[in-house]
């Protein structure tokens, strides 16, 4: 297993290099010069100041050297300083916001997993029935409804009209004076809407997938074998069929990581949640290049980690893959 994990991690290195190359290239598509941004905001910045800045950021060097220097710094997690007025380290800016985004996405994943399993399986075992039809309608609507629109409607209905839930931020103003349970409740109330809404898409996808996968499995011969042995229909479905239907779920969850992370940009900027997505959006609007580059790399690395975990989970669960992996 360890060997397999190490092999997988080594295989990630070329992809990582590719990611850094694309991130670097994207930034250098920019017309003009990143230093224009810093200097143009400040009319007193002279030509000389701009030249000094270019030297400071190494922009006077040939492009491959710039890339190499950036890469060297990246390995040491040195992503440079933000162009914004606080000019803090990009690393600090990203890592103080990462936990919020991770927590949001893990909570969404948990909801997706917890709800899509019963939904998908029930729909499959009652294919064609009213429950199946209802979930099909639900799935298609979840696929088609833009999440930011649902977020808006939720804010309007539960926040503005009914006043049940807060509509922005992570905590209330008096958060610091609350006791532990009140703090937990307060956080929960703030996160409830964003988490549920950002999990709808994945929920629809996974339950749909589980449904069709279970329908395939139900036709398999080994289920007939199980029935022929005299096992009850319940055991056949919930043990023999379910276990096999579950295996690909790991892959699907791994594949949904980029979507969730990308979605957090929209969710976090709508609900004013101080996470990575909001940071990235702010950086884009103010053309804060070091933060944009850092965000691109971190987003892609998170995706890679998601894929890696999915592969390892697959190897753990599926004996066919496990045997090959252990060897």
């Amino acid at each position, binding site marked *: 297993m360890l060997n397999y994990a190490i092999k997988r991690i080594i295989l990630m290195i*070329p*992809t990582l290099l*590719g*990611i850094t190359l*694309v991130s670097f290239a*994207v*930034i250098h*598509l*920019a*017309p003009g010069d990143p230093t224009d941004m810093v200097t143009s905001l400040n009319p007193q910045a002279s030509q000389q100041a701009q030249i000094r800045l270019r030297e400071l950021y190494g922009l006077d060097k040939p492009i491959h050297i710039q890339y190499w220097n950036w890469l060297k710094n990246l390995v040491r997690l040195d992503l440079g300083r933000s162009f914004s007025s606080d000019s803090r380290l990009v690393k600090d800016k990203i890592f103080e916001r990462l936990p919020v985004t991770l927590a949001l996405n893990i909570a969404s994943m948990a909801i997706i997993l917890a709800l899509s399993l019963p939904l998908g399986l029930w729909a499959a075992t009652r294919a064609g029935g009213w429950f199946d039809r209802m979930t099909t309608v639900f799935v*298609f*609507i979840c*696929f*088609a*409804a*833009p999440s*930011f*629109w*649902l977020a*808006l*409607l939720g*804010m*309007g209905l539960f*926040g*503005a*009209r009914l006043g049940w839930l807060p509509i922005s931020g992570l905590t209330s103003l008096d958060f610091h004076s609350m006791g532990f349970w009140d703090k937990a409740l307060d956080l929960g109330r703030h996160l409830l809407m964003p988490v549920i809404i950002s999990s709808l898409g994945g929920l629809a996808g996974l339950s749909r997938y589980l449904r069709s996968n279970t329908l395939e499995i139900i036709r398999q011969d080994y289920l007939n074998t199980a029935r022929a042995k005299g096992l009850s229909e319940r055991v056949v479905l919930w043990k023999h069929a379910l276990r096999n239907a579950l295996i690909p779920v790991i892959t699907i969850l791994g594949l949904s*990581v*980029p*979507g969730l*992370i*990308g*979605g957090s*940009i*929209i969710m976090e*900027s*709508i609900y004013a949640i101080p996470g990575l997505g909001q940071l*990235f*959006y702010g950086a*884009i*609007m103010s*053309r804060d290049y070091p933060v*944009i580059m850092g*965000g*691109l790399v971190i*987003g*892609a690395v*998170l*995706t*890679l980690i998601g*894929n890696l975990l999915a592969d390892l989970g697959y190897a753990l669960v599926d004996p066919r893959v496990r045997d090959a992996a252990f060897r």
Partner: protein
Amino acid sequence: MFKIGLKKILANRLAFCGGVVVLAMFLVSWMAPILAPHDPDKVMVRSRLRPPGTAGHPLGTDSLGRDVLSRLIWGSRVSLKVGFVAVGLATLIGLALGAVAGFRGGIVDGMIMRFCDLTLCFPSMFLILAVIAILEPSIWNVMVVIGLTSWMGVARLVRAEFLSLMTRDFILAARAQGASAFRIIWRHLLPNAMGPVLVTATLGVAGAILTESSLSFLGLGAQPPMSSWGGMLTEGKDQISKAWWLSLFPGLCILGAVLSYNLLGEGLREAFNPHNASRTG
């Protein structure tokens, strides 16, 4: 194949409805100048934030007094344009790369597929936002960037189709007759791979409309005063406590458009699925 497909689509009620809405959308956006009751950009300060049902403004007006219905009708043009141009671009790139990878195999195939995996690794929203922010927010940039970041599905699909088709006898026969590589790809492989590509493209239009609307919502897509459904929702957000209709209707339009393309795509998928074909005759 396409004839059978058409017949099946007509038999599949949901897919048929999807197709009808898609056609209706084409008509509405084509006839926008005739259908829209008002000039979508005309500011009427005296009739601001009128609720739906107001005389002359069936769906109300926004905070500048512009007619919501007219803006929705004109906004359909943006969604359609983006959907088709972006998906057209993605499909062309995907077809070309997938065909080369599947036909040539070996190192070329490996490299193209690595590149495909690499592009899939980026949360596409991050990549799209970064590129658009750096270029300049405009509807054309949105189309190009969506196209450039969504070709991977088609490429993988075409490659897989090619790999399975190339083991078939009719390709061997074509080779034995001395057909050129181009001819084999163009006349024998591509036409047989087009069904799944059409399905992916139809579903892709739905995805592109969704992406465009989120970009416009974030202020990085269609720029004001151009009316787009996503951009209208940005304003809906500002007026969320005062004017619910500004949030509701544009979202319903997006939902309806995306849903129709999805239903049509799913219907096509079922129609082209040989598994189903053999079962139902």
